[in-house]
């Protein structure tokens, strides 16, 4: 895939808005055949980027199934394992899980899967709310570099990236989401 230069010279767009949309549709198409009991499904997005991907993915799943799928959001800030090493001011979002998750099939969604620590934290947070039947992981981008034995059930795209690079979801225009790679100054 050819990189499109962005405004910031140290940033490149890995997935354009149209590519991101297409990728999320492909993810939905891969998930749908496995949904034996769609009434049992709950989509949970990890704030912040995962919440966006979860919303877009749920829209596709709802359109295909012709039914509403409950969705919740997790903020894992208070479950992180790096209180002393993160910047002292992580952005704190709101967890919003109003439905019961006991016995439900949880589709946990994030934008970028890297070390696996965020997912570990999200699993801990989820189990503070109840005991789901199962949890499956869907990510838009798997960038490798895992530090924990955590793998996605559905990854939109695998992109190899260096440890000093940051890959994230970015809103170029309202509702137009791209995936960008930011590299530190040499």
């Amino acid at each position: 895939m050819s990189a499109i230069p962005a405004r910031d010279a140290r940033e490149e767009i890995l997935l354009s808005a149209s590519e991101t949309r297409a990728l999320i549709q492909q993810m939905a198409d891969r998930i749908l055949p496995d949904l034996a009991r769609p009434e049992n499904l709950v989509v949970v997005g990890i704030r912040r980027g995962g919440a966006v991907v979860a919303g877009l993915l749920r829209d596709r799943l709802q359109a295909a199934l012709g039914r509403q799928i409950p969705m919740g959001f997790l903020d894992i800030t208070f479950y992180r394992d790096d209180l002393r090493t993160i910047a002292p001011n992580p952005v704190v979002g709101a967890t919003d899980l109003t439905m019961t998750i006991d016995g439900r099939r949880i589709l946990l969604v994030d934008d970028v899967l890297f070390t696996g620590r965020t997912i570990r934290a999200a699993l801990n947070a989820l189990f503070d709310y109840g005991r789901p039947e199962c949890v499956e992981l869907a990510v838009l981008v798997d960038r490798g570099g895992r530090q924990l034995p955590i793998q996605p059930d559905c990854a939109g795209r695998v992109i190899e990236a260096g440890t000093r690079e940051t890959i994230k979801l970015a809103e170029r225009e309202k509702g137009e989401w791209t995936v960008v790679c930011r590299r530190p100054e040499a």
Partner: protein
Amino acid sequence: MGSHLWNRKHLLGMADLSREEIQSILDAAASLREVNRREIKKVPTLRGKTVINLFFENSTRTRTSFELAGKRMSADVINMSVASSSVKKGETLIDTLATLQAMNPDVVVIRHPESGAQEFLARHLDTAIVNAGDGRHEHPTQALLDLLTIHDHLPLLDRSGFEGLVVAVCGDSLHSRVARSIALGLRAMGGEVRFVGPPGLIPPKAEEAFGARVYHDMEEGLDGAHVVMALRLQLERMTVGFIPSVREYFAFWGLTRARLARAAPGAFVMHPGPINRGVEISSEVADDRERSVILEQVANGLAVRMAVLYRLCGVGGGR
């Protein structure tokens, strides 16, 4: 919600906090409120951290709030009863803290009857210190929970921020560390503070020190206010006769429904507690679910204290 800079080791008062620092606490507290509504009311954030509550003054609300805050963040919380400690055997304040520091706590929460005690200790010791009230000086976590409560209700006043918000702080602001802290906090956030009360119970140079406008007439002071905060008449701190009688105080300065009618439409009532019913506020107003947010203040106090512990432990792990 945004990311804001918090690099302080201690929380000693509102006096030097910036709007961004205050906002960083409010943001975290707003998120932590959700934890307190869950079935499992606990997050693992401060697992392995130790918080010591050291109260040299009697307190039920604040001490319980800090204790619960630490426990809900999974910290180990120790409550030290000064009444049964070596302080009673003549140990100095700094010796007491040095002894505690040797036990390697991450945060020590201190309430002390002397103004400035926590600031003195922070200069001499390494442990992170939270001021849970020092004499007549400051009570920052009370101000922060008040700001969070006000922030929640801004939409009902058709407002998106604190700018131009008028808060009437009524009663004994002279002896009140709550009044000082909320006045400083509101000033940082862009709000307008009024001190309303008898001349003998208003701090000297209030306008200069706190940016507060002073009113000695209750009705005039409440006129158009968006928030009315009634202060407890601190009979325990009054060593001379500041008021003729409690009955007369209520007649002139008590917050009644009739007086509240002078405030802006949608104005709501706050009180730091505990309430002296029929002294600074009538039961009718205190118990009015439409106007009184006193119990919300208590709930927000827990979330704010969780947020404070979180922010302090996030700066060098509270050490």
